C-alpha cells in the first residue's frame, strides 16, 4: 500500500492523474466523444509504459469522463455519457433559469461525495462485497432491469403511458441484429450492416446531441432571449451539505451497490437514485423543473458506480461495464492476471488502482471548480461557432467507434426520430434507457428460461428477484398514493 502511495505521490504520478482527469473531463463534456472511446484509444499508447502509471492514467480518464458528462448535460442538454441522461432532467432547467454555475457546483459536490463514499467501500470491503455479486442469478438480473425500466417510466415525463411507449420503442429498436441467446440474426431486412444492430453511441448522440443541435439552430433564428447568468460562482455553502446530506449518502450507496453488479453500470445507478430521491421527497412535483435534489441524486449515484464497478474488477477480475472490460484488457496487456488472485500477486497494482480512484476524484473536483466559470461561458459562445463544431464531433465520434459510415447515418436518422418524438411530447430518456437495458433483460431472461426449462415462476419465487419487483411497485405506488392523499386533503 505504501509503495503504491509513494509511486502515486511522485511528480510523474500526480501529473498523470491531473492530465488524465482533465482529458477525461473535457472529452466527457464533448457530446459525441465518450470516456470509453478515449480509454480504448489511449490503451495502445500505454503499451510501453510502466503498468502502474498506465493504470493510473486510464482510471483518471475514467473518473474524469463520467464526471465531465454532466457539463454538457447541464449546459446544453446533451448528455456526454448515457450515465448523465438523468442529470439533464434538472440540470438543464436550472441552467436555463439562470443558475448554470449553481447547477454545476451542486453536481460537482455530489460527484465528489459519491466518488468518495464508493471509494471507502472499494478500499475496505472489496473482496467480501465482490463475493456478493456471484449470488445473482439470471432472473434476479432480469427483475433488476425491469425495475429500472419501470422507474424511468415514472420519472421521465408527465404521462406514464407515453414514457412506457417510449421505453418499449427503445427496446424494440435494440432488437435488430444477432440475438444474444440463439445467435440468429433477426429484423435486419437483409441489410448486412444491421447484423450488428444499431450501436448505442450513434443512437445516443443522435437522440440527444443531433436533435438538440437542430433544435438550437432553429431557435437561433428567433430573437435571442439571453438568460441572465448570475455570477454567484459556486455558491456552495456548508448548509448545502446539511440539506442534501441524506440524499447524498443514500444516492451514493445506491450507486455503489448497483455499480457492483456486472453489466449494469452507471445508467441504472443514477435512474434508481433519482427515483428514490423523488419518491421520498416532500416536493416530488419539483423534480424535472430544476430541482437541486435531482441533480445531487443523479450525480452522486453515477460517480459512485465507478467505485462500485471497480470492486468486482479488482477483487474478482469481472468487468462491471464496457469501460471496465477495456481496463481488464489493459491489465492483461501489461502482464497481470486479473482475477481473484490479483490481490495476492500484485497488491501494489491493486492499491495503485484504488488510490488513483481517490486522487482522481479529488483532482476532478479541483479541475471542475477552477474551470467552472469558463465552462458556464460555453452557453455564451456564438451558436455559429459552437454548433457546427459539436456536430462534426458527433460525426467523427460515431464513425471512429467502429470505423463505418453506416453508424453516422444511424446517428442522423435517430436525431430526426428524436426531434419527431419530442414534438409529439414523448420523452426521450425512457427510450435510451430501454435501448440500453432491453438486450440485458433479454439475455438474462433467456439464460433464466433455459435454466428453468421454460418456467417463468422463478421470477416471483427467487427472493432477490421478488424483492426488486416489490421495490419497483413500491416506488411506483408511493408518489401516486401521496398525490391522492394530498388531493383528498385539499378537498376535505
Amino acid at each position, binding site marked *: 500500500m505504501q509503495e503504491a502511495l509513494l509511486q502515486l505521490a511522485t511528480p510523474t504520478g500526480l501529473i498523470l492523474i491531473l492530465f488524465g482527469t482533465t482529458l477525461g473531463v473535457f472529452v466527457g463534456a464533448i457530446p459525441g466523444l465518450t470516456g470509453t472511446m478515449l480509454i480504448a484509444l489511449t490503451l495502445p499508447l500505454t503499451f510501453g509504459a510502466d503498468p502502474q502509471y498506465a493504470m493510473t492514467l486510464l482510471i483518471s480518464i475514467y473518473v474524469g469522463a463520467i464526471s465531465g458528462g454532466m457539463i454538457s448535460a447541464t449546459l446544453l442538454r446533451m448528455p456526454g455519457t448515457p450515465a448523465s441522461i438523468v442529470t439533464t432532467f434538472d440540470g438543464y432547467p436550472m441552467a436555463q433559469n439562470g443558475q448554470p454555475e449553481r447547477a454545476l457546483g451542486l453536481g460537482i459536490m455530489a460527484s465528489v461525495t459519491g466518488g468518495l463514499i464508493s471509494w471507502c467501500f472499494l478500499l475496505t470491503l472489496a473482496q467480501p462485497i465482490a463475493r456478493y455479486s456471484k449470488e445473482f442469478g439470471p432472473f434476479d438480473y432480469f427483475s433488476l432491469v425491469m425495475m429500472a425500466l419501470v422507474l424511468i417510466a415514472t420519472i421521465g415525463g408527465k404521462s406514464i403511458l407515453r414514457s412506457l411507449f417510449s421505453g418499449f420503442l427503445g427496446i424494440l429498436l435494440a432488437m435488430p441484429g444477432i440475438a444474444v441467446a440463439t445467435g440468429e440474426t433477426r429484423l435486419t431486412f437483409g441489410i*448486412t450492416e444491421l447484423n450488428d444492430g444499431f450501436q448505442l453511441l450513434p443512437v445516443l448522440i443522435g437522440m440527444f446531441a443531433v436533435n438538440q443541435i437542430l433544435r438550437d439552430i432553429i431557435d437561433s433564428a428567433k430573437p435571442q432571449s439571453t438568460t441572465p447568468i448570475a455570477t454567484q460562482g459556486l455558491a456552495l455553502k456548508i448548509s448545502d451539505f446539511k440539506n442534501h446530506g441524506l440524499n447524498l449518502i443514500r444516492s451514493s450507496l445506491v450507486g455503489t451497490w448497483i455499480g457492483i453488479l456486472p453489466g449494469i453500470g452507471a445508467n441504472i445507478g443514477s435512474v434508481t437514485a433519482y427515483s428514490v430521491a423523488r419518491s421520498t421527497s416532500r416536493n416530488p412535483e419539483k423534480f424535472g423543473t430544476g430541482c437541486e435534489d435531482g441533480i445531487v441524486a443523479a450525480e452522486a449515484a453515477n460517480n459512485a458506480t465507478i467505485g462500485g464497478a471497480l470492486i468486482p474488477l479488482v477483487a474478482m477480475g469481472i468487468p462491471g461495464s464496457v469501460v471496465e472490460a477495456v481496463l481488464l484488457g489493459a491489465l492483461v496487456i501489461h502482464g497481470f492476471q486479473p*482475477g*481473484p*488472485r490479483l490481490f495476492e500477486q500484485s497488491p501494489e497494482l491493486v492499491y495503485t488502482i484504488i488510490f488513483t480512484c481517490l486522487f482522481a476524484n479529488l483532482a476532478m473536483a479541483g479541475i471542475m471548480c477552477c474551470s467552472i466559470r469558463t465552462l458556464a461561458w460555453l452557453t455564451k459562445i456564438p451558436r455559429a461557432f459552437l454548433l457546427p463544431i459539436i456536430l462534426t464531433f458527433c460525426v467523427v465520434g460515431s464513425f471512429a467507434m*467502429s470505423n463505418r459510415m453506416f453508424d453516422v447515418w444511424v446517428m442522423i436518422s435517430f436525431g430526426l426520430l428524436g426531434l419527431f418524438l419530442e414534438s409529439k*411530447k414523448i420523452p426521450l430518456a425512457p427510450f435510451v434507457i430501454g435501448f440500453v437495458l432491453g438486450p440485458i433483460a433479454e439475455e438474462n431472461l433467456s439464460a433464466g428460461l433455459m*435454466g428453468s426449462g421454460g418456467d417463468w415462476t422463478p421470477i416471483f419465487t427467487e427472493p432477490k428477484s421478488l424483492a426488486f419487483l416489490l421495490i419497483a411497485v413500491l416506488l411506483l405506488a408511493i408518489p401516486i398514493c401521496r398525490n391522492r392523499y394530498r388531493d383528498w386533503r385539499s378537498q376535505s
Partner: protein
Amino acid sequence: MSAQSNKLKIQGVVLLALLLITVWRLINTISTNQPNQFPQKPIQIVVPYLAGGGTDTFARILQKSLNREGGLGEEFVVTNKDGGSATIGSRQVKDAPPDGYQLLCHHEGIIATQLAGVVDYGPEAFRPIAQTGSIVLLMVVRADSKYRNLNELLEAAQKNPNTIRVGANQGSPAYFICKQLLGEFPGADFNFISAGGAKRYTYLLGGKLEAGIFSLAEYVSFRNSSDTPAADNILAIGNFGDKRHPTIPEVATSTEQNLKTRAENAYYIWAPKDTPDHIADILARTFHDTLQSPEVNQELQKLSIDPTFRSGEDLREHLAVRVKAFQELSVDAKTELPNFPIWIIGIVAILLVAVLIFKTEPEAVPEAPTTSDRIYSKKSSMLGATCLAILIAYVAALQFKIPFGIATPLSIFLMGLSISKAKHTQWLIIGIIGLGFSLALEMVFTQLFSVALP
C-alpha cells in the same frame, strides 16, 4: 478603427496559413500513391472484436513486434470492427480488394458463425495466410463439484439428460466442443445456458452452472490459490489439447480420459480470397519471423497462448480438418424461447394505440401566435432544414471518399455562415475555426490514436 483592421489582418493571415497547411497535407497524401513493390502503405489488421478483448490483445502484441522489427518498411495498424458475432469485421476483409493491405485476425469462430447460420461464408471465402498461435481449452467445474473428470460429467448427462447446466452460447466454439463430447455418449444431453465470459465464471461459482468451457488464460486468471474453500474456487477436469500443458500439468487430456473429442482454438491471419501468391508469401514470412522473436514469445506466454505457426499447404490441410470436425455437429435450439421481437412489437403497438386514444389531460391552450412569431418560425424551420441538408451532404461526401480535410472545413464553414446569417464580420473566424479544427482533429486521430478517419 486601426485596431479593428489589425484584428482582421491577423485573422486573415491565420486563415491563409491554415489553408496552406491543408493543401500541403492533401498534396502529400495524394502524391505518395505510386505503384511499386509491396507494401507501399500501412497494412491494416482488422480485429472483429472490441479493443481490449482477447483477439485484440493478441493482434496488438504482434503489431508491436511487427513495427519494431521494421521488416516490411511499412506500419501495421490494428483496426477494431466489432459486432455481429465478429461477422462485421470478417465481411469487410472478405469484400476488400485482394492487395494484402487489409488482413483479418480471427480465431475458429469464423467456422462456427457459418455453421450456425449467422453468415453464409466461412474459411473458404478467404485466403489463409498463417496460423499464429493456439489456445488451449478446458472443461471447468466448481472445485467442490462431484464430477472429477469428463467421464463422470458425461455419464451424469447420459443418465439424466438436460440436467447438467453448461454455459455456452449456441453456435460458439465452446458449444461445438460440447456437442462433440455428447456425441460420444448416446442419449446424453446438456442444458445449454447462454453465458459469456466473466458471467460464466460468476454463474459457476454461484451454483447456477455445473460446468463451462474456459480458455487456459481465463482459467489461470480466475483460479484462486489452493487454500481457498472449494466452494469459492474452480477446477479444470479436462484438457482438450493434444498433450498436457506445462502451466497445468495436473489436468489430464481428453485423450487420456479415453475420449475422442479434441479441440483447440487458434488465431489465424486471413486475407481476401484472390490475394496473389507473392504477397501472401511475404506476409506469411513476416508473421513467421515475428512469432520467433523472444519478446512476442514472452508476451504470449503471459496470455497462455502457444506460438504455433502454420502456413501454406500445411495450414490448408489443418483448416480442412478443423472445418470437418465442426461440420459433423449440428446446432439445435432446445428450450423454446418466447419470440421476443413479436412480443415487443405487440406491446409497442398496444401502447401506441393507447397513447393515441388517451390524449393526455387538456393542455394549456397556447397563446395565439403573433404575425412576427409566424415569420420567425417559418424562417427558423428553413434554417433548420438548410443545416440538416448541409449535414447530410457532408456525410454523403465522406461516404463517397471525398477527403476529410476538404469536406469538414467546408461543412463547418457553410453551417456557420447559415447560422450567423452570413454576417461578414464573422466569416473569417468561422473559416479559421473550420480549417483549424479539422486539421487538429485529423492530427489527433491519425497520428496519436492511429485511427483512420473517413
